[in-house]
């Protein structure tokens, strides 16, 4: 247990160090924050043009969470793929340590980054667009937002693990994250989508969690949204298991064949 905690901690430190190198204050405040706000603003304005204030409110809640999902998925995919590009994959294979706590630690700063993205979007766009969202209700939904971020990160890990031998992981993740705006009911409710799309949406992270967040923001109790939260957690666990198995498989096969250069 202590070893695993130490591995987790060393991964988290590496993650934080990478984060600080990649995101200098100029990049963070000059590019990252504006990007977060403008992407959400675009989709909210689109919804406002289509259906006025109620649509804008719906889209704002959806997009403020979707931007976190977007970022965490891409980051998680990069955490996995980064091992390949940074030539550290072979060390993961060779080291006698358990890779899971270390990789989990390496993801930590990105969870925080995603949560900040969501918080910034809500704090800026709600007053700017004069959208009526009760502050306390929004605060109450934070645990569900964290669950959504965790389940989206599991999907990002999954894509990273699956796409490790190819070079299109980031592209797949990027496109899927945009497609989730459709499938997960970010801009329009899933009930308005064709049945086939609804089925796909129900199998993806975010869909149920987002419905729970919307209900909580509207004043619903936690008891009434427990089934939705349960489904979101279940989906997160399934994707996590698939990601864990797939990445473990990649490590095992690479070790057996001695072909880490090909990963």
């Amino acid at each position: 247990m202590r070893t695993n905690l130490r591995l987790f901690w060393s991964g988290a430190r590496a993650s934080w160090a990478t984060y600080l190198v990649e995101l200098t204050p100029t990049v963070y405040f000059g590019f990252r924050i504006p990007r977060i706000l403008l992407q959400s603003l675009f989709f909210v304005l689109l919804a406002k043009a289509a259906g006025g204030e109620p649509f804008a409110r719906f889209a704002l809640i959806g997009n403020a969470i979707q931007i976190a999902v977007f970022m965490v998925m891409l980051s998680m995919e990069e955490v996995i793929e980064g091992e390949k590009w940074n030539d550290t994959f072979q060390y993961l294979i060779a080291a006698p340590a358990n890779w899971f706590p270390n990789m989990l630690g390496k993801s930590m700063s990105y969870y925080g980054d995603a949560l900040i993205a969501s918080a910034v979007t809500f704090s800026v766009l709600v007053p700017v667009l004069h959208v009526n969202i009760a502050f306390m209700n929004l605060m109450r939904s934070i645990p569900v937002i964290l669950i959504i971020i965790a389940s989206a990160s599991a999907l990002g890990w999954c894509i990273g693990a699956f796409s490790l031998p190819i070079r299109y992981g980031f592209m797949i993740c990027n496109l899927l994250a945009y497609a989730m705006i459709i499938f997960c009911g970010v801009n329009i409710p899933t009930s308005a989508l064709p049945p086939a799309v609804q089925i796909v949406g129900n199998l993806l992270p975010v869909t149920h969690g987002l419905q729970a967040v919307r209900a909580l923001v509207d004043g619903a109790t936690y008891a009434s949204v427990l089934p939705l939260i349960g489904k979101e957690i279940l989906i997160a666990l399934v994707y996590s298991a698939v990601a864990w198995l797939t990445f473990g498989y990649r490590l095992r096969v690479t070790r057996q064949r001695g072909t880490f250069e090909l990963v």
Partner: protein
Amino acid sequence: MKMANFRSTFRILRNSVILQMKSNVISSDFISTLFIQPVIFTIISVGTYLYGNKPDFGLFAITGTGLIAIWNNNLFTSGEIIRGERRTGTLSLIMATPSSLLLILLGKSFANAITSVFAMGITFLTGMLAFHLPIGISNPLAFLIGLILIIVSITCLGLVFGSLFILTRNAGEFVSVANFPVYILSGLSIPLTLLPLWTRPLSQFLTPTWGNIILNEAASGSGGNMLPNYLVIVGLSIIYLVIARILYKRVEYLALRAGTLEQW
């Protein structure tokens, strides 16, 4: 201009176009922004308008999404061109050659703009297949002229950014942030009336705004005389070229004075 100069200029442009097209064919990022992203954006924008019982906005959303794809491709690849040259260690070499980097950038940006026209077709196709929208272009000639002018103009605008990207390693971050303001300010898929009045001058300075107006008027047949709008795009293109030229000269001066590009 001497005939020999003209020939060499043309050769540089042609070779840059060919080289960039070859790179595009094997670039997964370019292919995804050209073929897949327009489909997703069309579904989101048209789907949102249909859900809001505004099917009349379908064509507006489709042309807007097409322009988003064209702009996206051009901006993204303008950043990628410089970043690619920097990573492969050829940026300094190109700057040191007698051939102007600006000319090479122009050729490469133009290649991107030409190929990105496919995206416009893909958005129309998505609108027809996914939503069964009765989409026809009322004035195809005006649409085509408008599209060509927009591509040239967006290429020139891409050059402005391309010149700036020489002095930064954050071109990728800049590209990711510069997309959405242009979508919003140019009214691509969203009406400009939603924006505050103080943003109008900014919108008017962006060629996608005028491109959006032209393509919508040509497609819906609601436009009268298109010539003034065409002239605005031509005028903007000239302004972009002048800005790009000034910027590039400044960047070139800074690079030569420093004797290196490594510090940026």
